[in-house]
């Protein structure tokens, strides 16, 4: 490291500036672009499931309506509000880190973590109710109906899509713990907040997936 001469003496080397970048602006731009490249693969990953969902919904619409009626609309709506609330606190945490407000960043990240945990807890309550109803696909599927096999397929999509969404939330919660520690350590400020921004991009993406899952899994055929 010390062998590399510093050509610009007016700009001392920032401790978090990687040597292959010109400056922190370029580093910030590269990391957000890189995160978007990753989110592109995530969009297509979830997109494949949404596409399969759409094909089978087209084929088995009545079973999809029946399955959706076994969802808890109240809990689903509360969870939507909780998750969008966590996106707000995440966005405010990015802003706080931009402004160099250390403890505000820490508290907003903690708030995001708490709201994310509330979401997962409510999701757990819903999953428990589905198990009780015998709606978990496989050998424990005891739900009785003329459309039962197709409702089972709906529930397979339901558990697959919300389960992968929840997995992303769990990973996000783990990342938040790391970022709470780094924010507390005063790593971030007006010059260097890229990692918080990238963390935010991930969290908001997971929020967007839920924004589509909610109407597609809970709000089908409610007007019947």
């Amino acid at each position, binding site marked *: 490291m010390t062998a590399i001469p510093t050509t610009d003496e007016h700009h001392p080397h920032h401790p978090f500036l990687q040597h292959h970048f010109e400056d922190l*602006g370029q580093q910030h731009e590269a990391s*957000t672009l890189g995160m978007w490249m990753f989110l592109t693969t995530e*969009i297509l990953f979830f997109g494949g499931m949404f596409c399969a969902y759409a094909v089978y919904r087209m*084929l088995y619409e009545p079973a999809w309506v029946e399955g959706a009626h076994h969802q808890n609309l109240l809990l689903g709506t509360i969870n939507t509000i909780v998750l*969008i609330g966590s996106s707000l606190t995440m966005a405010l945490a990015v*802003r706080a880190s931009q402004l160099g407000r250390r403890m505000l960043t820490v508290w907003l990240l903690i708030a995001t973590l708490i709201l994310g945990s509330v979401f997962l807890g409510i999701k757990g309550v819903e999953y428990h109710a589905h198990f009780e109803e015998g709606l978990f696909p496989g050998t424990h599927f005891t739900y009785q109906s003329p459309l039962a096999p197709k409702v089972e397929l709906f529930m397979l999509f339901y558990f697959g899509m919300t389960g992968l969404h929840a997995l992303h939330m769990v990973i996000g919660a783990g990342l938040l713990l790391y970022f709470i520690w780094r924010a507390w350590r005063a790593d971030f400020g007006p010059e260097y907040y890229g990692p918080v921004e990238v963390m935010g991009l991930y969290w908001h993406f997971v929020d967007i997936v839920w924004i589509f899952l*909610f109407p597609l899994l809970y*709000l089908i055929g409610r*007007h019947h």
Partner: protein
Amino acid sequence: MVTPEPAHEQAPAHHVTPLPIYFGVFFALMIFTVLTVWISTVNLGVLNTPVALGIAVVKATLVILFFMHVIHSTRLTWVVIVGSFLWLGVLFVLTFADYLTRAWAIY
């Protein structure tokens, strides 16, 4: 220094979104959430699903533009995002070009 820096270097890293925009977007997302729940109980015929998805697209666009700061992002970022949705469109269009044209299936 009077030398203007290239626009792509510092601008995106130093734009601080005003608080009213964040709270305004959050408020709009809440309104759209209540709206989509309410409108799902209204019989719109075949339009229920398109309306629900339309509201979801508006909500997602608000999150992407303001919470994810894409409105202030570089054009290269825009290309990546638009490109990803184009490929998502290819996935759906080609899949349904098959399933919607199977004359022997009853829809």
